[in-house]
């Protein structure tokens, strides 16, 4: 097959990626958008196989079979609530693949062909192995934090920034050395090792609540690594698709940082949610006052007399798998002529769009899911706000307390509703470890218990009212 034909196939694949991404921006066309991008990927893979010279076909078939089956099984069996971890894993493997391909290309050129990589290739190899390796170990740490197999709290130690800085200098030094002498394979392996270490060290000081931002950023990195690998292989489709992922990931990262009113640097290096900084004696001074505990039966009276209800879901809903119970409650309320909407904070949950996916799984219409800026002005005219396993995103101290770590973060203004119900397992502070004055407000009523059980009981009580 002529080279022109392969290049044309790459252009076609890249066009399908862009078209697919465009279609993903509306829920209606999104499934077709995903399919369009998949077709683009198939074309790119076939074109690459025709052009390929790195590995012989039997090994490609074996690798694709193993990875394809494992990927399909994982994708079809993973619980919707575990989706953030799955995305972290996918990013990590993408980064690993890029780093390994860069390594394979270098070894094949230097050892097998006894030749020297030229032009932009050594630089691209360095970038690919660096970014790809950081993406792999960074994603694995994010995975471990989300799966809670390791502590979700930031891991910090004295001199951490200095250690990371020195490793950064080491990475740059090894990178420059490899570009100057690409035939020295030991430098390559050393660069890979130190980059893997860097990925771990960069993510451990970041708290679990910031994992959505980290995942989005690592997603961007996996794209940049793929883009660099595209230059190594002189594969246009890989350059374009990698650049698309890199750009999309960084835009999403920016959106999420803006939603928390924090800079990316603060998310990455701020050790958010760490032990309270300074202060006399270091004790956390929480708001004082009476917390009013209520039962679902008490709540049913107020719900039944409401005209409008806004449900504010958070990570607690995901943990309790309460989304189906929420659907039932929403249906019951609507049958009584009560308007029900859902307020979606941009960083609710552990993944961008986490709440949307869970509520969609429970068959809740997507036009009832309303974004923060649109729904905030309506809280003042809303009878009941039901906070379901959300905490930091409804914490009013973000508006008022200048000392609060979340000061300035845009929040959902639930405290402006006439009545606020908060369903919570206990009075423990949220993921960020910050006390929430909302719970002590006069118009706030707490219902303690498992989100799913409480919502089911509430639904029953409203039905029987």
């Amino acid at each position, binding site marked *: 097959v002529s080279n022109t034909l392969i290049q044309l196939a790459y252009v076609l694949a890249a066009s399908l990626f862009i078209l697919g991404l465009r279609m993903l921006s509306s829920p209606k066309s999104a499934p077709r958008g995903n399919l369009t991008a998949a077709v683009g990927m198939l074309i790119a893979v076939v074109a690459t196989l025709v052009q390929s010279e790195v590995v012989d076909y039997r090994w490609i078939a074996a690798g694709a079979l193993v990875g*394809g089956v494992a990927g399909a099984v994982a*994708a079809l069996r993973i619980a919707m609530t575990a*989706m953030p971890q799955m995305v972290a894993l996918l990013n990590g493997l993408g980064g690993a693949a890029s780093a390994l391909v860069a390594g394979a290309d270098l070894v094949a050129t230097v050892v097998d062909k006894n030749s020297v990589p030229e032009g932009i290739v050594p630089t691209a190899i360095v970038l690919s192995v660096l970014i790809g390796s950081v993406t792999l170990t960074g994603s694995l740490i994010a995975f471990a934090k989300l799966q809670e197999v390791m502590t979700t709290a930031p891991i910090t130690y004295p001199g951490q920034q200095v250690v990371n800085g020195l490793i950064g200098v080491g990475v740059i030094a090894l990178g420059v050395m490899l570009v100057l002498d690409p035939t020295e394979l030991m430098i390559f392996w050393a660069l890979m090792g130190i980059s893997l270490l860097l990925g771990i060290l960069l993510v451990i000081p970041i708290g679990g609540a910031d994992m959505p931002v980290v995942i989005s950023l690592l997603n961007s990195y996996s794209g940049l690594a793929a883009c660099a690998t595209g230059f190594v292989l002189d594969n246009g489709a890989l350059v374009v698709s990698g650049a698309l992922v890199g750009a999309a990931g960084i835009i999403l990262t920016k959106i999420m940082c803006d939603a928390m009113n924090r800079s990316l640097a603060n998310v990455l290096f701020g050790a958010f949610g760490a032990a309270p900084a300074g202060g006399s004696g270091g004790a956390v001074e929480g708001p004082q006052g009476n917390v009013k505990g209520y039962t679902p039966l008490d709540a049913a009276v107020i719900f039944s007399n409401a005209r409008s209800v806004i449900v504010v879901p958070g990570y607690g809903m995901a943990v309790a798998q309460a989304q189906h119970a929420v659907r039932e409650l929403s249906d019951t309320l609507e049958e009584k002529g009560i308007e029900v909407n859902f307020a979606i904070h941009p960083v609710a949950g552990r993944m961008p769009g986490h709440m949307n996916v869970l509520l*969609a799984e429970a068959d809740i219409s997507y036009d009832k899911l309303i974004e923060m800026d649109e729904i905030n002005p309506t809280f003042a005219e809303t009878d009941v706000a039901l906070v379901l396993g959300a905490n930091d995103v409804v914490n009013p101290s973000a508006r008022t307390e200048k000392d609060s770590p979340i000061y300035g973060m845009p929040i959902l203004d639930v405290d402006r509703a006439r009545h606020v119900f908060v369903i919570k397992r206990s009075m423990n502070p949220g993921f960020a470890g910050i006390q929430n004055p909302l719970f002590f407000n006069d118009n706030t009523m707490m219902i303690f218990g498992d989100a799913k059980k409480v919502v089911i009981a509430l639904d029953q009580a409203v039905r029987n009212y």
Partner: protein
Amino acid sequence: MIATGLGFVATAFATFNVIGGFLVTDRMLGMFKPKDRS
């Protein structure tokens, strides 16, 4: 030989990413339904 081994693992990881990614996206998107769910 080393290159083949690296390429094999890379292919497995990349295919996991591609197949897993598209399937998981399709699963998530399949759940989004418009107003009338009758």
